[in-house]
Each structure stands twice: as C-alpha cells, then as structure tokens.
C-alpha cells in the first residue's frame, strides 16, 4: 500500500487565503482530514502558533479554531437547517432554545445572501443548499482557520461570486482560509499563495503573483496542457432527435421547450435550484413530467421509468455520485457495467466476467482512471476518479441522448479537459448531448446552444454565437428584467 500523502509541509498565516491545488487523488482531502483530526498522521507534526499539537478528533480541531467544509457535504438529513448549522456548538446551554436557534441561523443564512427556510428538514436540500448549510456552520464557529474543500464544485457563477466574497470578508477579519478548488480562475482571483500537490507529495508553494495558469497546470499534472477555448460557433450537427414541447412538472418546472439534434450539445445554464436537474430527471423517467410532450425521432413518447428512458437510448449522468451515481462499496467493474449489464449476460443470465473486466479495463485506460486495477472499491477512489467511473457506466450503454448533470463536478483540470474531449467526441459521433452545468466557462466551451432557466421557467434559448457569460448570468438572475423595467 502506498501512502495517500507524504512529506507534506504547509503553513497558513492569519489573514491569508491559501489555495491548494492538485489533480484528483493528489491528497488534498486527505491533508485536510488530517488537519481536522478525522485521520491521524503516521508521522510528522502539526504546529499551532508555534506549538506542536496533536489533533485527535474534530473537537481538538475546533478547540484550536480549525473548521472545515468537506468535499462531500456533511449534513444531517433528519435535522432541520438551523440545527444542522449549530450542531457542533458546545456552549449553548443545556436546553434547546429553538426560537433563538432559528433566529441566529436566519441571520447567518441571510449574511450569506441566500434565502433558505431554516426550519426545513435538511433531507430535501439540493447539494448547493447543503453546501450553504456547511458554510453557515463554519461561519458560526469562531474560526481561526477555515478549510474549504471544493466549496464551489456544485455552485453556479452567482453563488460562486457570493462565496468568494465571504472568503475575502473572512480574510479581512484575520481568518486564515485554506481553499481547495479545481477552478483555477477562482484561485487567481482570491488566493494569496498557492500550494500544489501531486501524487500525495508537496510540489511547490508560491505567492500567487509568481505563478500563471499554465505554470500551475504544469506543476499539477507534470506536463503542459492546453487551456480550453471558448466556442464561438456551433458545430455542424445531424438530424433532429429530440423535440420537447411545453414540458412541465406540477409545482417544479413548466413550459420547457427545446429541440436537440444528433451531434448537438445543448447546455442548461441557470442558478442553483433553477430546476434544471428536474428537467433532466423528467427526461430520464425518474420523476415523469405531468404536462407537455416529448418526441424522439418525430414520434411522441411517454417516459415514466428509467428503464423506458434507457430503452429509448437515453442516459443520465447524475450530479450526486455518492447518493445516486455509484455503489461505493462495489468494485469499479461492477459499477461500470451496471447500466448495461444485459450486454454481459450469457446463457441463464450468467455474467461474462472476462468481457466485463475487459470493458472496465478499457475505460480505465481511456478515461485515465487512477487505480491499479478495476477490482478496487469505487469508494476508495478520489472524487474525480469516481466521476470518471460514473461516466464509464453511461458511456457503455452507447446512448443516443446523453444527459450530463454537472459532468465535471470536482474534476481536476486535466480530467476536466479529458471529459470535455469525450463529450465533443461523442457529439462528433452523433450522440445528442444535454449538459446541465453551473460552470460557465464549461458551458461556453461545450455548448452549441444554451438554454437558461430560472425558478423552473425557461428564460431563453439561443445559439452559442449569440451567447456570452454575461447574458447567461443576466437571464439566470433576472437582471435583464430589472434592466428592461428600468
């Protein structure tokens, strides 16, 4: 067994935002889990204000003023939002003061500029909302060091902006912020220093002024990488595949109308909670629509179960790989073949394990999934590599229509480029692609056309040549209405 992390040195200074970058599986999350006492280091030491300390558990970390937001949001689904925020506070008295609890959480939440009912049970929260809860939780503690592990992975431009502002505000208050992200543009905007990890090793720590994008990527990946360009013109595409008219789901979204051709990439832009995911789920038959029509190849179809959707050649790559995407305790090969198991069945329903393995191996190479073999439990992989396994699962179904929901959530620059290449490649092969993404540069890089949603309504659909990041943001936030009203 190799060490997940070795020879790591890192110093954080009050009032500084320190970014940590590295490929998937580089050991970033492991590093912070050590700093917060979730894991114990096998060797080495942690110094706090010059003194060596041992952090045995989260409490030890909290006592030192270290708090963290983890990559996978850690919320309690059965508790309401307010309780989730204040769960780790110790000196709030013996008895619950619900009134005060709700009041303080309301204040915290509104300080973040979000609207979220603090009395709601956390079970219904979207990933982004869960992240909001985590931020509020970290803020509520009087922290000296705040660690954020990919806080923006599932946020859209608008929320990212807000988060970065919170980061800056904390910095101004003298808090040391450790910021982990795969979105390099964010890092250049807020970080003071940046540390690069590769394969569990410390590569470099430099002031931000001394590094540029390409240099950083080179440090991370060990080689140079093309920066992905913004598309300005739609690609050629084939005949019409999907035609959606006035698609609605009671109380969730209404009147979504678009067409999608073979080989075309349609991106759904919008704020978190704008119900893009729900449109995807309706097309995939998880929560069937209650109004409107779906036509495939010119024939009207009803999709009420995922099996039906898959029979029509539709695939849906979920945004929540932990809960909906992968069987974490099962090996890579079993996850990869899950959606296309039928292909590997022989007489009497026996699985052709050799063929299954070969397929999984092939994807391991093609998507460069970092793992010694395909028998590894998926849960043991880093986030980005898990994402690739999920992709493999759906690619193997050879779909005609592929719905990607946040396809590069938590994926490093290198892998992200690979995923984008795969998507382009698929489009070239004639697969119709629908990408739900909160990452605007990603939208700009992939889309032939862009559909923007806000609060369950379709705000507009336009060609990439008419599109700009500003226009998407304006439509998604409703600023265009403000503007036209003024």
């Amino acid at each position, binding site marked *: 067994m190799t060490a997940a992390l070795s020879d790591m040195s890192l110093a954080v200074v009050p009032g500084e935002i320190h970014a940590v970058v590295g490929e998937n599986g580089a050991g970033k999350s492991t590093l912070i889990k050590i700093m917060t006492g979730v894991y114990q280091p096998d060797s080495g030491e942690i110094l706090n204000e010059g003194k060596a300390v041992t952090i045995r558990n989260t409490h030890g970390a909290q006592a030192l003023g270290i708090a963290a937001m983890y990559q996978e949001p850690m919320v309690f689904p059965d508790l309401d939002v307010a309780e989730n925020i204040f769960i780790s506070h110790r000196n709030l008295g013996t008895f619950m003061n619900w009134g005060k609890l709700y009041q303080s959480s309301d204040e915290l939440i509104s300080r973040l500029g979000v609207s979220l009912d603090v009395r709601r049970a956390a079970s219904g929260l979207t990933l982004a909302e869960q992240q909001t809860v985590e931020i509020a939780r970290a803020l509520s503690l009087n922290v000296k060091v705040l660690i954020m592990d990919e806080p923006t992975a599932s946020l859209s431009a608008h929320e990212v902006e807000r988060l970065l502002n919170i980061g800056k505000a904390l910095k101004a208050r003298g808090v040391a912020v450790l910021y982990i992200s795969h979105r390099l543009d964010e890092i250049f905007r807020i970080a003071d220093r940046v540390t690069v990890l590769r394969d569990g090793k410390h590569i470099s720590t430099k002031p931000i002024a001394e590094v540029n994008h390409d240099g950083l990527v080179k440090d991370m990946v060990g080689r140079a990488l093309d920066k992905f360009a913004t598309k300005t013109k739609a690609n050629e595409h084939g005949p019409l595949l999907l035609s959606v008219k006035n698609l609605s789901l009671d109380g969730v979204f209404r009147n979504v109308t678009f067409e999608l051709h073979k080989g075309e990439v349609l991106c759904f832009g919008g704020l978190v909670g704008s119900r893009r995911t729900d449109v995807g789920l309706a097309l995939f038959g998880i929560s069937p629509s209650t109004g409107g029509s779906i036509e495939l190849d010119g024939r009207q179809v009803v999709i009420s179960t995922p099996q039906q959707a898959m029979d029509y050649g539709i695939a849906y790559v979920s945004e929540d790989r932990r809960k909906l995407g992968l069987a974490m305790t099962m*090996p890579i090969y079993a996850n990869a073949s*899950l959606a296309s198991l039928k292909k590997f069945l022989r007489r009497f329903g026996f699985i052709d394990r050799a063929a299954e393995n070969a397929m999984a191996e092939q994807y391991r190479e093609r998507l460069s999934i970092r793992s010694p073999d395909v028998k590894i439990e998926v849960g043991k992989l880093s986030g980005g590599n898990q994402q690739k396994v999920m992709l493999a699962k759906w690619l193997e179904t050879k779909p005609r229509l592929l719905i990607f929901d946040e396809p590069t959530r938590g994926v490093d620059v290198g892998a992200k480029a690979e995923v984008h290449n795969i998507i382009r490649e698929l489009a070239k092969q004639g697969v119709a692609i629908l990408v739900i993404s909160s990452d605007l540069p990603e939208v700009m890089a992939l889309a032939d056309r862009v559909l923007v949603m806000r609060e369950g309504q379709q705000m507009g659909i336009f060609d990439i040549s008419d599109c700009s990041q500003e226009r998407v943001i304006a439509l998604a936030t409703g600023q265009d209405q403000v503007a036209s009203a003024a």
Partner: protein
Amino acid sequence: MMLARLKSWEGLLLIILIITVLANAALAPQFLTLQNQINLFQLSIEKIIVALAMTLIIINAEIDLSVASIMGLAACTFGILVESGTPAGLAIILCLMLGIVAGAFNAFWIAYVQIPSLVVTLAMLIMYRGIARVLLEDRGITGFPQWFGDLGQKAFLGPFPLGMIIFVVLLVVLGLVLHRTGFGREVFVIGTNAEVARFSGVRVARVKTILFIISGVISALAGLLYAGRLASVRGDAATGFELDIITMVLLGGVSIFGGRGTIIGVLFSILIVLNLRNGMALVNVTGHIQTAVIGILLIMSVLGPNLAERMRSTGLAKASA
C-alpha cells in the same frame, strides 16, 4: 480489497468449523457416524433451507421475519387440504402457490408501497401465524400418506433424505444466481444503494418482489418438509424459527446493512451452528446453554476480528511514532 476481506471472514469461519468438528469427534464417540451426520442436518433442515433464501434477502438490505409463519401456514394448509380429501400431490402444489402468494403480498407492501420490510414482515409474522391458527385451531393433524412422511424422514438418494438434497441443490442454484448472474449483481447493487440501482435502470421493485416470492415459496417448501418430517402438523409449527435463521445468516458474514455476504460464508456458518449444537447435545448440554454458546460465538466472530484489527492499527501507530 472487499474480496480479500470476505475471504478472510470465510477463512475464520472455516477454522471455527474445523475446530468444532475436531472437538466433537474427540468428545462424542457417536459424532462421526453417518446416521448422526445425517440427523444433524435433518433436525434443522427447514431452517437451513430457508437461511439460503434469507441470505439473498439480507444482502438486498431487506429482512423477512415472516418466514417461519409462512412455513407454519403452508404446513397447516397442507394438513387441512389432505384432511379434507385433497390428493397430497395437489395439496403440495397448492401450498407452494400459497407461499408465492404470501411472498408476493409481502413484496407488494415492501417494493411498491415502500414500507420497510422489517415493519411489513413483523406484521405478517403475526398475521400468517394467525391464519395457520384459524385453520387448525387447537387441533393437530396426522395421517398423511405414507410416501409423504417417507419423503420427510427416509433416505431418498443413497443415504440422504430429500431435504438434504433440496438443500444442496438450492445452495448451488442460489449461490450461482447470487454470485454469477446479472440478477445476483442487481441484488448486491440494490443492497448497497437502492437509489443508485434505480438511477441505473435496475427494476428495483421487481428484484425485491422476486426475492420475497423466492423467500415465500422456499419457506412454504420448508414448511411441507417439516410436515413430512414430523408426519403431523399443528398451529404452532415452526414458531420462532426466524431468529435462528437470521442468526445463521449473520454469522455467515452477511451484512445486516446489505450489499455484502456470500453463500459460502452462510454454508460455513450453517455447518458450524449445526455441528456445535449436535456436539453439545451429544455431551448433554441443555438447550439454554446451547443457545447461549451460539450467541457468544455470533458476537465473538465479529468482535474478535474488530479487536485484533484495532490492536494491530494502534500497534502500528506506536511503532511508527
């Protein structure tokens, strides 16, 4: 990694099994006789047959507490049918169909209405047993055809009675289904994370329905074997078997949270429990102590490796510090 772990679990069980067998052979002279070896299976044959079905159910992250009541219900129904003049062959078929219906009824609430299986089968444990009671009231029924009793008691193939053959056949069939087929893979995936399965196009409700029907029909079959072996039935037939069955499955290393477990592990666990009970009985250990020993073994089989693991890891930490 997972495979290695499972292997080591089974290795542990195998060691326990060998120790048990050796100790039995040393302490009880009659232990190694063929008749005793057959008796050892025959006395619990219904439980171990149902344990195989229960393995699939628990790996699927469900539980079926109603198995023993379905056994009783099938046995009593058989009694009533035969008593009222139905040919025994037809009665057998009707009872197996009853098992299918009972399993499907469980499945309806669990898979389609989505009430947790623990809740549903707890209620059905009471209800199916109650129906058996309604059928037979305070009577017992005997006087089944000779051949039926013989099937339950006498050697069927070589020295082996029918029940043992059914057990071996089911062991192989269910083992293959679970570990080698697509259906088995789906059982594991649903047990690991049912939502992931649903989002991958697995017909979750259908798989669960099939499993509970399998459990129902195998329970009914076991109930019939029970009726044959004892050549009589009563309203309380097979009462309380469910906990023994679940104990065997869990000792076999099947995770109660679903997604993990092997048929081989359960086979070893069955062999351990049967041999241990038989050995203790042969040296005149009373029922309570037997149950307590199985209980201790159940706890220790998980606790022991856990403690060893912890000592190893703290030992390592100390060594490296």
